[in-house]
Each structure stands twice: as structure tokens, then as C-alpha cells.
């Protein structure tokens, strides 16, 4: 059986939505909502930063 180390290669998912709210997903997906989604993925938020265009989160793993 091959030895197993940490898998660096990432999986990347990008979803685009339509909607009328100027804040859209940024309003909808607050910290608690994101944590619930990320719980399904098996990771969590460790750090965050944002500007007027985007919210960026560093995740565990």
C-alpha cells in the first residue's frame, strides 16, 4: 500500500448566480452560514479580509 502524505492538490469550485441584490451572496452568506457550508466540506474559516468588491477567507486544511 502506497504511503499517504498531505494532499496539496486542490479541488476548485466556482458558482455564478443571478440576482437583483447588489450585495447578493455577500449578504446571504454571513459567517455562520458559511461555517455551516464549510462543515459539510470538512474545513473552517481561520482568517478573513474584505473590500467593497469581495470577501476573502483563508480556510483550515
Amino acid at each position, binding site marked *: 500500500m502506497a504511503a499517504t502524505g498531505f494532499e496539496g*492538490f486542490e479541488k476548485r*469550485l466556482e458558482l455564478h448566480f443571478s440576482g437583483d441584490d447588489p450585495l447578493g451572496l455577500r449578504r446571504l*452568506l454571513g459567517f455562520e452560514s458559511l461555517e455551516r457550508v464549510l462543515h459539510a466540506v*470538512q*474545513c473552517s474559516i481561520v482568517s478573513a479580509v474584505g473590500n467593497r468588491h469581495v470577501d476573502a477567507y483563508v480556510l483550515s486544511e
Partner: protein
Amino acid sequence: SSLFVYPNRIVIKTCGTTQLLRSVPCLLDKTGELGLRLQRCRYTRGSFIFPHAQPFPHSSFREEVLYLEENLPGSLCYRKARVLPSKTSHSWHVYAASERDDDALPEEDDGGEDVLGTFTLEVCMTQLDRALARRFYRRRTDVSGGDVAGKEMTASAGIGGINPRALVCDFAFDPCGYSMNGIDGDCYSTIHVTPEDECSYASFECVEATGGGYAGVSDVLRSVVRVFRPGTLSVSVCVMGGRGDDLPGWSLVADSLKKLGYKRRGRAVEDFPGAGTIVYQTFTAHRK
């Protein structure tokens, strides 16, 4: 791992044995409650180093595609899955689904976001230079938090110079490993590092507008490769609103890496519905 949330777009990138695709039904439940409609989806990944360690639904690309097919709404009726091959061990797995068949989406997208003329650059690097990779280990005596140690790694590795304008959020894991996100206006960049010798890996990704041309791509790519000096790397460029045969990006990528001593081992181009054109190239370092 990283997450980016725009008003009409979400990007999640996770490593290890995370079950990324399990986020799809959760997100669709949540967005459906507020009337947001999914217009398109793109899932990409390289070839896992340890594929047998991956849990459901990531134990094979076929399984991942089946999972997406079952969980995406039927309105995304244009769907395509491909593995872009390479002579190296790096292959690029792509799944895209869209409401529309064309990659030249109208400028007035339903969400009001201008997606034309943007590109996503994804770089995957293995066999990192050992001395450079050691910068991404915490010192045993270091009792500072991951954010403080992360800032030290950003500075010592020269990552802060890749885009000096960016607002950077960085984190050092214990005992090793590093992640950073940089945001600059509506563009982002992200770097993740696994420095262990037996499975060393680093990735770089950025999303940029192509209004200023592709010249900046070469500079960014060279800066990133100098930070890690990988033995093997793959470069995927996904362009919205372009066609593979008229993309100047791929020759620029090859030329800029040739100057750093890298030889191209493979090249593939493929159009995806609603996701644009993906140009995928792999390179190996000339060893003395």
C-alpha cells in the same frame, strides 16, 4: 484552502481530503431561499498525489462528475467534462455546466457582473526547491499566532512583492504549511504551500481583467516560479470571451517559463460551455 465571495459568484478551493462538492447542495439550498438562480458552475482540479486517500465524492473524476450531475439544477443543461492530458503526471480535470452554450456571454450578464475579458490563472507546482520550501516551516521556538507567522513567511519568501497593491491575509499552519489571499479591487490572488519533501506542492491562482492585455501574466508567473523553483508545474489559463486559437496567453506563458529554464511537456486547449476556453500547459525544469 480559500474561499472568495462576490455578490454573484463564489469560489471555493480546498486541499487535503476535504469533500468540496458536498458544499453544492448546501449552497443551492441557501441561495434558493433568497431567489438566487445558479447560472453556471466550473469545477477543476489537478491529479491527486494520493488519489486513494480521497473520500466520496472525490475518489475518482467519474464519481465527482456523477455527483455534480445529480446535484446541479436541470436548468444548467449544457454540460461538459474533460481530462486535459499531459506527458507529466499532471492532468487537468474540468467539469463545466451552464444555462447557455456559448462562452462569449453578453456584457450585461443577468447579475450585472462583467465577466467578459477576465481570466483565471491556476498554477500547480510540485518538487519545490528544498531550501525555499523550508521557509514555510514554523520555528520550534515560535509561539506567535498563525497570522503573525504567516506575515513573516509572506515577507521572507518574497510573496508580498508579487502584487504590492494587494490587501493580504496570510496564515502559517503548525508545524508547516502556508496560505494567503490577496485582494486588489475586484481581483484576487491566492497561494497555498505544502512544503514537506515527500509531497511538496504549491499553488498560485489569480483572477484578473484582461483589459490591460496579457503582459502582466508573464511577470506574475515568473515572480511566482522564482518563489518556489518547482521541478514540475502546470499552468491553466481560463479565459472568458476568447477562443483557444486566438489567445496570446499560452505563448506568453511558455516564453516566460523558458527564460527561467523550463521546457514545455504538453499543451491542450478546450472550450467549455459558459466557462470559456481553458488552455492547459505543463513544464519541467531543465536539470543540470
